[in-house]
Each structure stands twice: as structure tokens, then as C-alpha cells.
């Protein structure tokens, strides 16, 4: 029989420490939608998505009500559009993005991910069209998210695409300048991208995935922070144990929600993404966990070690709690979506360079970084190259979601609203990388032994 303490602990996690399931994401294959006529293709896509996800939002809301656990987002990921739309005779996939946006609105999901291309080794014709369509697609749609994978440990880094993505990000910022470059918040550049990630903006339905699948992303930085408050002065072994136990409990809730959603929708369960995903709300911050370990402010020396411990302990605790784990799994460090990160940038303790170091040990990369509007395309490309190199060499996922906000400079603040939060503009190294980025070509895949 359950004890009153168990029941009160769970309800305190939900009510006071903001434990929630961050997203139920339904993956849908669009491979059977292909058609040479783009209008017909868009119709096929719209029909398939609205039919497959008709009950997704309602099911999420039912589970939320019955178990009393908030489920913040219901989302959809699809086969990368560069693959699904490749047989269309067209030079732009913007109409596809519009069809996706309409389908997302029809079924009531807040984001749909998969306006994507995988080009770590080179471009197909569809990849080229997709990448060129990104700025316009993100400017004219509201809910479509885009991602490009341009590097991997096995293939190396496609430096032509690195160069191009700097320009694409700048153009996206320009086309959405009236919304403080919001388009860039819906665009992620990856190395070693996972094909079953339920989190936006980088979600898509990979080519090895089944017809449809349910992936769930859990969260709960506030719960971990709260658990560590009882561990003041304890050594790191005890800290890691506490995080593991907390991650286990959080993940069990995700597993329950995933199983229920899968059963009720008649769609197979894919994975749980064991992530600590912050929101700008007070008490929902990853930075505050690091500070709870004894750092005056996130970004202080020791931050990388603290994050490494946190990331590893979350995985160890979560792995036993779920039958299948995947996605990004680890701690996210999106600056604008984390009250502690925002404060750390504002007080000068957290810089772009320190964030880069942190990405070596966290689950993703440079995420939701607002930089001055006059940051050049080459500099953005070079930042992407650095992140992709960290991912390639360390055999991990890295990503860049960077927002050069037109008209803004260091000292200004930008407001994206909702879960995307707000951010001070970060300072960027002013020295040029033009000639480096102009080279193009491919950085060869790294050697996997002699790993010093």
C-alpha cells in the first residue's frame, strides 16, 4: 500500500517543483506521401498528419487530467521534408511548410518538426531546395520547426553547409526582423543528430523509425534542485546519488504517460527522452541546480564539472526507469529559456565561450543564444563549425540555435515570449573567421582510437 509520504512527495513535486511531462511527440512517416506534383504532395501530407494525429491533443489532455500530471506540449515530428518532398518537381518547399503549419493548427499541436535535411556528407537536390527554402518557410509559418544535420562522427563535417547555414540564419533573421528574428528560434543546426528526439526545434521522424511512434520528453529541473537543497555540504558521491534517485522518479512518470498515450492512440511507444528541460518560470532552471552544488553563479569555474555530473547522473537514474531511452537525454542549457542562465548572462558570469565548454558535457549545444544583429554570417558559421567539431570528436550530439537579432547590440534584451523566454544579447568574439569559412569542402571523419 502507498504511504501518505509517497503521495505527498509526488504531489509536492508537481505543485511546488514544477514536475511535468514536457512533450508527447507523435512521429509520423511521410514517405508514402511522395508525389511529383507539389500540390498533391502537400494535400497528401496534410491529410496524413491530420488523420494520424486527430486525437493526439485530446489524449494528452485526458492523461493529464486523470493522473494529475501536467503535459505541457503535444507535438508532431515528421520524415525530413528534404526526403519526403524530393520527388516533387519544384524549386521551393515553402508550400510544404505552409501545409505542415495548417495541419499543426488543425490538430492543435503547438509545433511540428521535420522541415529538415541530413547533409553531413553532401547534398541531394532535395536537400539544396530545402535549405534554400528555410528562411521563407520560417517567416511565413508559425509552428513549423526546421533542422539541418551537417556533421557526424562517422562522416566528418560538411563545411560547405556550415558556410551556407551562417547565411541562412542571417536571412531568416532578416525576414523575421519585425518579430526579433523569431524564425531563428525555430531552426537548429546539428552534428550527430538523434532521429527520435521529441524536443523542438530539432525533432524529426528518422528514416529508421516505424510508420508512427510516440516519443515522450520528461522534465523537472525544479525537482532536482529541491532534492539537492537537502544535501548542503554533502560530497559529490551523495550529490550524484540524490540526482539519480530523483531522475528515476521523474522518468517513471514519463514512462507511465508514454505507455498510456501509446495504448490509447494505438501507436507504438518509441522512447523516453531523459531530459532536464528548463523553462523561464521561477523554480524550473538547470542553472539553479548547478548553483545549488555550490557555485555563486552559473558560469563560474566549476560549472562544466557540475554540469558533467548532473548530465551523467540524470542518465544513470533515468535508464532503469524506462524500457527504451533515446533522443537527446541529458541536461539542456538554453539560455533564453532558463531564468538562472539569463541572470548569469546579465551579471557577466556566463559567456559564449563558457557555454561552448559546457556543451562538451551536456546533452545538446549552444541553444537559444541571442547575439548582436551585426554578427556576420561567417562568424555564425564558425561558431557552428566549433560546435560540430565538439560533437564529431566526442561522439555526441551538438547543436546550435543562434539568433542574430537585427538592430540589437550587447546590453540590449530580446523577448521571444512563452516557453522561448527572453535573453540579454551575448557578446561575440570580434575577430574574423571569413577566410576560414570561405574554404568549404569537408572536414574528414576523425580517428576513433588514440583518443587523447
Amino acid at each position, binding site marked *: 500500500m502507498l504511504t501518505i509520504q*509517497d503521495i505527498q512527495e509526488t504531489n509536492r513535486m508537481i505543485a511546488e517543483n514544477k514536475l511535468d511531462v514536457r512533450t508527447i511527440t507523435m512521429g509520423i512517416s511521410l514517405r508514402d506521401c511522395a508525389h511529383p506534383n507539389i500540390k498533391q504532395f502537400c494535400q497528401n501530407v496534410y491529410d496524413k498528419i491530420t488523420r494520424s494525429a486527430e486525437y493526439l491533443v485530446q489524449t494528452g489532455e485526458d492523461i493529464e487530467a486523470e493522473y494529475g500530471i501536467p503535459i505541457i506540449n503535444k507535438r508532431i515530428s515528421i520524415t525530413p521534408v528534404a526526403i519526403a518532398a524530393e520527388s516533387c518537381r519544384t524549386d521551393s518547399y515553402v508550400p510544404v511548410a505552409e501545409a505542415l503549419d495548417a495541419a499543426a493548427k488543425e490538430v492543435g499541436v503547438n509545433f511540428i518538426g521535420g522541415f529538415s535535411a541530413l547533409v553531413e556528407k553532401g547534398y541531394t537536390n532535395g536537400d539544396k531546395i530545402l535549405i534554400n527554402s528555410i528562411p521563407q518557410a520560417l517567416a511565413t509559418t508559425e509552428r513549423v520547426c526546421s533542422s539541418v544535420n551537417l556533421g557526424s562522427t562517422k562522416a566528418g563535417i560538411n563545411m560547405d553547409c556550415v558556410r551556407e547555414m551562417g547565411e541562412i540564419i542571417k536571412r531568416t533573421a532578416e525576414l523575421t526582423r519585425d518579430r526579433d528574428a523569431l524564425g531563428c528560434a525555430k531552426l537548429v543546426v546539428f552534428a550527430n543528430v538523434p532521429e527520435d528526439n521529441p524536443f523542438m526545434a530539432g525533432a524529426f521522424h528518422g528514416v529508421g523509425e516505424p510508420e508512427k511512434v510516440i516519443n515522450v520528453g520528461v522534465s523537472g529541473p525544479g525537482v532536482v534542485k529541491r532534492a539537492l537543497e537537502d544535501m548542503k555540504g554533502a560530497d559529490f558521491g551523495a550529490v550524484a546519488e540524490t540526482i539519480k534517485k530523483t531522475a528515476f522518479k521523474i522518468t*517513471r512518470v514519463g514512462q507511465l504517460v508514454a505507455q498510456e498515450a501509446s495504448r490509447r492512440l494505438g501507436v507504438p511507444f518509441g522512447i523516453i527522452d531523459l531530459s532536464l528541460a528548463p523553462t523561464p518560470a521561477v523554480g524550473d532552471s538547470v542553472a539553479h541546480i548547478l548553483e545549488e552544488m555550490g557555485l555563486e553563479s552559473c558560469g563560474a569555474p566549476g560549472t562544466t564539472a557540475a554540469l558533467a555530473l548532473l548530465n551523467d547522473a540524470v542518465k544513470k537514474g533515468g535508464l532503469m526507469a524506462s524500457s527504451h531511452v533515446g533522443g537527446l537525454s541529458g541536461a539542456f542549457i538554453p539560455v533564453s529559456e532558463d531564468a538562472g542562465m539569463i541572470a548569469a548572462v546579465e551579471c557577466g558570469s556566463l559567456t559564449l565561450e563558457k557555454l561552448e565548454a559546457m556543451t562538451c558535457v551536456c546533452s545538446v549545444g549552444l541553444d537559444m543564444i541571442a547575439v548582436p544583429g551585426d554578427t556576420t554570417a561567417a562568424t555564425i558559421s564558425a561558431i557552428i563549425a566549433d560546435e560540430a567539431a565538439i560533437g564529431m570528436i566526442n561522439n555526441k550530439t551538438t547543436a546550435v540555435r543562434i539568433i542574430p537579432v537585427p538592430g540589437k547590440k550587447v546590453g540590449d534584451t530580446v523577448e521571444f515570449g512563452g516557453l522561448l523566454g527572453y535573453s540579454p544579447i551575448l557578446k561575440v568574439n570580434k575577430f574574423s573567421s571569413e577566410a576560414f569559412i570561405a574554404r568549404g569542402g569537408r572536414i574528414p571523419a576523425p580517428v576513433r582510437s588514440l583518443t587523447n
Partner: protein
Amino acid sequence: MKIVITIVGQDRVGIIAMVSNILAEKNVNILNINQNIVDGFFNMVMIADMTASKISLKDLQQLLRGKGEEINLDIKVQHEDIFQIMHRI
């Protein structure tokens, strides 16, 4: 199906009577009650079995929430599995 009912609010006469009356009326069987008063605040956790009941969980949630609001009580009804899965392997 087992459910967990959590009640929090200002103490007064007849809270348990009101809730157990509703549950009896709906054929929901109470399995366990744990209740205390801290600084005038009423705190109760109840585990019940609604297998034999005709009312749906959603309707029961709504009914108890509504009755609770009338007398300034927060009454929450949840499926028991969320607690089981978190605290029992």
C-alpha cells in the same frame, strides 16, 4: 481502478462525512484514510477503489472539485498508478 483523493483546506465540521457520502452514493469503496490537522489546516489522503462504480474518473473529479470549492477546499482525484509507478518498482 484505484484512485487517490487529496483534500487540503481550512478545517471545519463534516469534511470527511461530505466526501465519504459522495463516494458511497457513487459506489466508490474507501480503502484507506489518512488525515491530520496542522495549524488549523485540514489535510487528508484517501485511497479508494472505483471498480464497481458507474461514474467516470473525469466526472468524479469534477463533482468533488465542485463540492470542495463550495466550502473552500481543494479536492484532487488522481489515478493511483502515478504514485505506484514513482514509488514502487
